[in-house]
């Protein structure tokens, strides 16, 4: 334990992010004195994010760790890049919204940057304490960010509900961690794995309880049924860019953590958690997609749809293997791109109309065909239609599950996915088949940032759908770090 590697150069991307956050808060404080324009803060945030993302590329194929607590390997690099991209998208597509609807814009960007640091370390953690701190860094930033909307009376309530339920979940997670620490004797992933692979019969009930609590706590963070109750409320109450961020980074980071834990230290005790994970996966897939059928608010619809997506991802954890790990990474990346495309479009729509009920989307194909096209592509991708990202990534996921001997789980997933098409169609139907509300039939355009964000993301959705090879290769290299058989 004495020869720890304290090479701070390994953490440069996060230093950049934190530095940018501090810079933004300072700039916000002295905004008036310095005479800063309204674009300065988002510009700083965007530049810092780009710098961090670029810096992460320097670590490709590194196999290193910082003081035994944070692994710097392809897996971490994969998520570093992914999360900085998400952050960039949220900043670019959201700044207009933020300007209008957020109380403290400086804090808003700073919190986003900090939460991204948390998300990255969730992926990189190779030790329970680090994992816990990272989770809390992400969660706390989001608790506050959710309640920052000044126009929406639901925002503060959503924040309060989120923080209380999140606190309960964290406590359960912690108790689970303490039991695993107690049974394995260490918080290091590698040592836990070593301890458990030597046989676990002597730990009995304590280990089982620990696993239950751990899954419940992480299931809450990932919004798996039945721990999903907070999701629709937080999504609805949060400012739209934060909703996008919640559905993207917050989910992906949880799965980054889940995958590292369940493919590493907890792999030896797979028999004890696999059935739990399978049960939750089924409940989440079916529940999320069924409840989504009756939503009338676009944010809530997307909340339940993202719950459904979580179910597919949990399926990959259940059937853990080399194939399903890389399939999960591919799916997470594809899901992020798609979901952000949808959210960027919804944000652009809200910027213009200030509305977010499904019925408000009536006739969008006439008033803004471009936006309607983006939403259609995004939603069909979420439903898993071909030539779009969702088809390829879901397919790979189902295939991995089936080849892992979980054909029944893949069957449930296919059926759930079929159900999901129906509610996505409800949105598309409104856009294309209904007439726009009276007095709103004029054409309108997006802001340039809106065009850039939605255009790039939609292109990404098509690119992944048509030529997923490179993404697959990258995900494969990232997943190989986990050293599953």
């Amino acid at each position, binding site marked *: *334990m004495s020869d720890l590697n304290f090479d701070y150069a390994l953490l440069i991307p996060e230093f950049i992010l934190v530095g940018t956050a501090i810079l933004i808060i300072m700039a916000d404080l002295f905004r008036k004195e310095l005479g800063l324009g309204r674009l300065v803060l988002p510009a700083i945030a965007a530049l810092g994010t780009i710098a961090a993302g670029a810096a992460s590329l320097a670590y490709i194929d590194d196999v290193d760790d910082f003081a035994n607590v944070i692994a710097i390997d392809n897996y971490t690099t994969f998520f570093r890049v992914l999360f900085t991209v998400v952050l960039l998208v949220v900043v670019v597509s959201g700044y207009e919204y933020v300007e209008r609807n957020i109380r403290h814009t400086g804090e808003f960007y700073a919190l986003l940057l900090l939460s991204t640091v948390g998300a990255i370390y969730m992926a990189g953690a190779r030790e*329970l*304490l680090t994992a*816990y*701190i990272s989770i*809390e860094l992400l969660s*706390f930033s989001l*608790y*506050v960010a959710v*309640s920052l909307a000044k126009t929406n*009376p*639901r925002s*503060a*309530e*959503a*924040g*309060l*509900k989120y*923080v*209380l339920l999140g*606190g*309960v979940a*964290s*406590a*359960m997670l*912690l*108790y689970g*961690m*303490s*039991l695993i*620490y*107690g049974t*394995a*004797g*260490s*918080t*290091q992933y590698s*040592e836990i794995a*070593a*301890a458990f692979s030597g046989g676990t019969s*002597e*730990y*009995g009930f*304590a280990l089982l309880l620990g696993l239950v609590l751990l899954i419940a706590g992480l299931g809450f963070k990932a919004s798996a049924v039945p721990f999903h*109750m907070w999701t*629709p*409320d937080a999504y*609805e*109450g949060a400012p739209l860019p934060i909703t996008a961020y919640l559905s993207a980074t917050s989910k992906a980071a949880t799965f980054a953590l889940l995958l590292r834990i369940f493919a590493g230290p907890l792999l030896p005790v797979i028999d004890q958690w696999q059935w739990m994970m399978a049960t939750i996966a089924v409940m989440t897939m079916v529940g999320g997609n069924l409840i989504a059928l009756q939503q009338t608010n676009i944010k809530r619809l997307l909340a339940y749809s993202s719950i459904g997506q979580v179910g597919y991802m949990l399926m990959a954890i259940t059937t853990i293997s080399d194939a399903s790990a890389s399939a999960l990474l591919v799916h997470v990346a594809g899901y992020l791109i798609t979901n952000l495309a949808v959210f960027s479009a919804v944000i652009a729509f809200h910027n213009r109309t200030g509305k977010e009920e499904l019925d408000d989307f009536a006739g969008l194909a006439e008033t803004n065909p471009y936006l309607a096209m983006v939403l259609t592509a995004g939603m069909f991708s979420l439903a898993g239609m071909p030539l779009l990202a969702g088809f390829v990534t879901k397919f790979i996921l189902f295939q991995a599950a089936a080849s892992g001997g979980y054909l029944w789980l893949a069957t449930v997933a296919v059926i759930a996915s079929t159900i999901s098409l129906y509610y996505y169609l409800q949105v598309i139907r409104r856009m294309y088949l209904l007439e726009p509300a009276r007095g709103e039939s004029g054409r309108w355009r997006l802001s340039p940032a809106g065009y850039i964000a939605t255009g790039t993301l939609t292109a990404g959705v098509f690119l992944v759908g048509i030529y997923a090879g490179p993404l697959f290769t990258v995900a494969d290299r990232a997943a190989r770090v986990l050293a599953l058989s």
Partner: protein
Amino acid sequence: MSDGLSVELAHYLSVSGIIFGIGIAVALSKRNAIAVLMGIELMLNAVNLAFIAFARLGGNFEAAGGDPLAGHVFVVFVLTVAAAEAAVALALAVLVYRRRETVDLDRITLMRW
């Protein structure tokens, strides 16, 4: 449990488990935001107790090449995080109270579940 875990450890864990149970019951049944927060604090303290007990008395740690110190460190961090959590939650509670004059979660119902 074999001889690795002594009787004393079991005692500590029982207490910790009971506190955790009370905490979770409070957190999930109370409808007042402040009470829920108190429940969460109880749960976190139960966690701390468990960590300390494992770190001090978990007999199989040395054999497994384990790290008793990690438990202590964990507790310090949990305490800190719990304080931060209370700060955030109370701030939000105040925010809601200003607007709605209540922190009863059942009455904060602008959104349906």
